[in-house]
């Protein structure tokens, strides 16, 4: 190539990375030398403007502020996760309470521990709704609550927090609450007499 330096080559010349052939052209070409000199002068002028160094304390404060922001993010994330886990755990607690209540109500009155254990062994499993449950709707409420629980939430549900059942009740919609109340009242009536 024998023409003047291209813009890329002029930048390469500024950087000192121009190839030997083109450097030879530059040596013999006043136009190109002037062009590169103007670019270099502009870079030198721009370089004169410095960023003032903040006080040494600034960096500590700055890092601490970022750490706070990041911690806030972490808390928000874990709070979201906790809210879900708490809801799921509470729902599981309500479901478990409902199941125990229904099971107690539907199994024969134990006269002794042995009889009770025998009755428990004969009682239906979670996956097999008992035929003598009050009705389909009541079962579906309990089943729906239990069905949304994943493994982690189920583990969390083993140790429900104080008041968790109350919170879970607040998360039920009005139909679900009414149905739960209806089932519990009916079973209570049956138990008492």
């Amino acid at each position, binding site marked *: 190539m024998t023409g003047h330096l291209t813009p890329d080559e002029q930048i390469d010349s500024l950087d000192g990375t121009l190839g030997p052939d083109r450097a030879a052209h530059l040596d013999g070409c006043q136009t190109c030398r002037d062009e590169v000199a103007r670019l270099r002068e502009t870079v030198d002028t*721009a370089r004169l403007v*410095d960023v003032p160094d903040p006080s040494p304390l600034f960096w500590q404060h700055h890092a601490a502020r970022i750490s706070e*922001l990041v911690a806030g993010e972490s808390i928000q994330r874990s709070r979201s996760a906790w809210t879900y886990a708490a809801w799921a755990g509470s729902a599981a607690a309500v479901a478990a309470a409902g199941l125990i209540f229904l099971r107690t109500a539907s199994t024969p009155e134990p006269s002794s521990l042995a009889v009770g254990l025998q009755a428990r062994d004969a009682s239906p499993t979670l996956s097999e709704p008992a035929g003598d449950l009050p009705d389909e709707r009541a079962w579906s409420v309990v089943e729906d609550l239990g069905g949304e629980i994943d493994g982690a939430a189920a583990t969390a549900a083993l140790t429900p927090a104080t008041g968790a059942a109350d919170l879970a009740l607040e998360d039920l919609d009005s139909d679900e609450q009414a149905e739960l109340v209806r089932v519990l009242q009916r079973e209570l009536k049956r138990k008492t007499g």
Partner: protein
Amino acid sequence: MMDPEQPASSAEGLDSRTDEELVGACLDGRRDAFDLIVARHQKSVYQICFRFAGNHADASDLSQETFLRAWRGLRSFRRQAALGTWLHRIAVNASLNRVSSRPPAAENVDDLRLPDDRTETPADGVIRGQRAASVRRAIAALPDRQRATVILRVYHELPHHEIAAILGSSVGSVKANFFHALRNLRRLLGEQP
């Protein structure tokens, strides 16, 4: 006395780790690893932000925003690029977004000045300050990509390939942008009083 740019805290056992290993530690739940990342990179990130914003308050905000975005997006960090390059890219994008959505801030001579020269007279200082303000105005008037290229090349002395990675373009495009930026800068400085 403790180095202000070094972490003050709990990042024990992490000091000798590479940036890449720190990212891994963050993803494993060690938030103190991110503190160390901040300590290592906050100065260069702040300086990039300052070059765009032109004042300390906005530069500080932008720098914090950069690290917060980095924290949120840590999982998307592609390890082909260096962590510093990735952070610079976030800083440039955050700065361009902020700067283009706001009118240019009023000049603050204390915020942007030429390097301190204790031997100069007060009159020289004023002239240098005015020259610095002219350069800043000229750089602020450049198109976004040209401005980003000048900042990264002239002030941060990043190689073209790294600037290309930060701006998401090619080396050829970076060189062309730099060439046109310098020409425009020269013209703008010539136009100014």
